[in-house]
């Protein structure tokens, strides 16, 4: 009872193979010693990982994406934390409308946000700037940060705060010593998810990035549109490895499944 039969396990094996196959092939191909896409049948080589270092365009795009992810996820969290605390702990007119509005970018296709920002930024002449990218990314990732802080703050027992007050704690002390530590896992995981979402974002950025502000996903996308070579597979293999490490950390921190419940945006 409640044990998988052989048929279920066979399905499971195929499903996992389906999930892992494209990631595995990227990693395998990146070790090819040859100058074109091929399975490394005779010998492995780190040649293409070395080639990344000689390719300033990928290096620059990586640093740009990293900076962009850090800046925009910090801004998004700074905006989302007070809003989430207000929504979860107060009852006020317009509360549902405000919460729905702040989550609304999740309902807007990234491509629509991309053209909207392209049009808007061109009009005010900031298109292709780093500032423009930050603004666009903040809008796209804020709902993720908001949702995770909301979940943490809603699950909090208000009696704990009242207890602190009754014991003579001042409001700021209550916030710093009681409220903040209790919602901290939500804040940290929300910030991390926001960072990853920004770091991976392609569809919106492809519209508002300029040659001097090309993010890593955009650089890779443009490269793939042009040619698929072992260089781009080596970059991808590094990203897969980095994400695996982050994923392990996130799973330790909150449990990966809790991060995604309720739907998310990583549109194909």
């Amino acid at each position, binding site marked *: 009872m409640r044990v998988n039969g052989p048929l279920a396990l066979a399905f499971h094996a195929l499903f996992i193979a389906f999930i892992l196959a*494209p990631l595995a092939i990227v990693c395998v*191909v990146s070790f090819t010693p040859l100058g074109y896409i091929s399975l490394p049948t005779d010998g492995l080589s780190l040649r293409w990982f070395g080639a990344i270092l000689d390719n300033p365009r990928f290096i620059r795009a990586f640093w740009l994406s990293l900076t962009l992810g850090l800046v925009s996820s910090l801004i998004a969290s700074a905006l989302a934390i007070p809003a989430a605390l207000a*929504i979860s702990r107060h009852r006020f007119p317009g509360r549902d409308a405000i919460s729905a509005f702040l989550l609304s970018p999740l309902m807007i296709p990234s491509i629509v946000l991309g053209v909207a920002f392209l049009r808007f930024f061109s009009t005010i002449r900031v298109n292709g700037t780093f500032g423009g990218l930050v603004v666009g990314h903040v809008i796209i990732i804020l709902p993720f940060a908001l949702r995770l802080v909301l979940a943490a703050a809603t699950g909090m027992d208000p009696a704990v705060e009242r207890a602190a007050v009754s014991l003579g704690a001042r409001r700021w002390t209550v916030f710093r010593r009681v409220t903040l530590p209790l919602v901290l896992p939500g804040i940290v995981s929300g910030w991390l998810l926001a960072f*990853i979402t920004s770091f991976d974002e392609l569809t919106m950025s492809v519209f508002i990035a300029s040659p001097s502000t090309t993010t890593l996903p955009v650089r890779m996308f443009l490269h793939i549109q042009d040619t*698929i070579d072992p260089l781009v597979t080596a970059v991808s293999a590094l990203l*897969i490895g980095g*994400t695996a490490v982050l994923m392990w950390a996130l799973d330790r921190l909150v449990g990966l*499944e809790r991060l995604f419940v309720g739907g998310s945006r990583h549109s194909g």
Partner: protein
Amino acid sequence: MARSRAAPYWLTAPALAVYAAFLVVPIASVALLSFHGFEFYGGIQPGLTLKNFRDVFSDSYYWEVFGRTFFVAVVVTAICAVLGTFEAIVLQRMGNPWKSVFLLVVLGPLLISVVVRTLGWALLFGSTGLVNKALLALRVVREPVAFMYSVTGVVIALTHVLVPFVVISVWASLQRLDPAVERAAVSLGATQPTVLRRIIVPLAMPGILSGSVIVFALAASAFATPAIIGGRRLKVIATAAYDEFLNTLNWPLGACLAVLLLVANVAFLYASNRMIERRWQAVFRESAA
């Protein structure tokens, strides 16, 4: 908690101000743009017109694009719903540590850039041809199948990108399922397939539906996967809008496509969420109690 009545408004004000300036205004400006005319030599024309919408709806090319987008989204959603539901049920029945390991394997790819995941499929379909080699070796097909630049290829890669959303959503609703219900059914003589069909799937239905809604919305507006696997000729709405903005430079027409996608997406999400809530209210109330 004794707090001033204005506090929640002050706390939400910064986020609301940012949204007003950088979400409402850009969306409104692109909506407005879709009502402007366009001349190849004169650029964007002053004066409002419905010409773009008339052009789009009277051109068989765009109907083909709409049809393809819708077809891909429906097929991807159906496949994701079936595969994702079964996988969630299998995962639910596993013991630890396998359960958490495989949950990580299934959900992890959501954190990896969609460009990387699609590149993997491009390698499997095209450059290495591994999928065709496997199919030929297993004698599933007689001749190599053209996956690259085909709807089949787009559907397979998009299914891979989006199926975790169904797994996680079904998995969440299975967590609320009381194992006693299943045991009761078995003790009354139900076979495993009957338990699955009559007990588990109906109780997981809210999860299956909400996961499918997310998958459909994301599949219909997908950009990277159709652009890489579908190539330049196999357009969907998102890649067609990209073309108008960055290649043809007919921004008003691209804005028109984007507005149509936005309206369809929001209407679909709103309608389906209301439908699910109304239909499954009883289930939600029960599980909340």
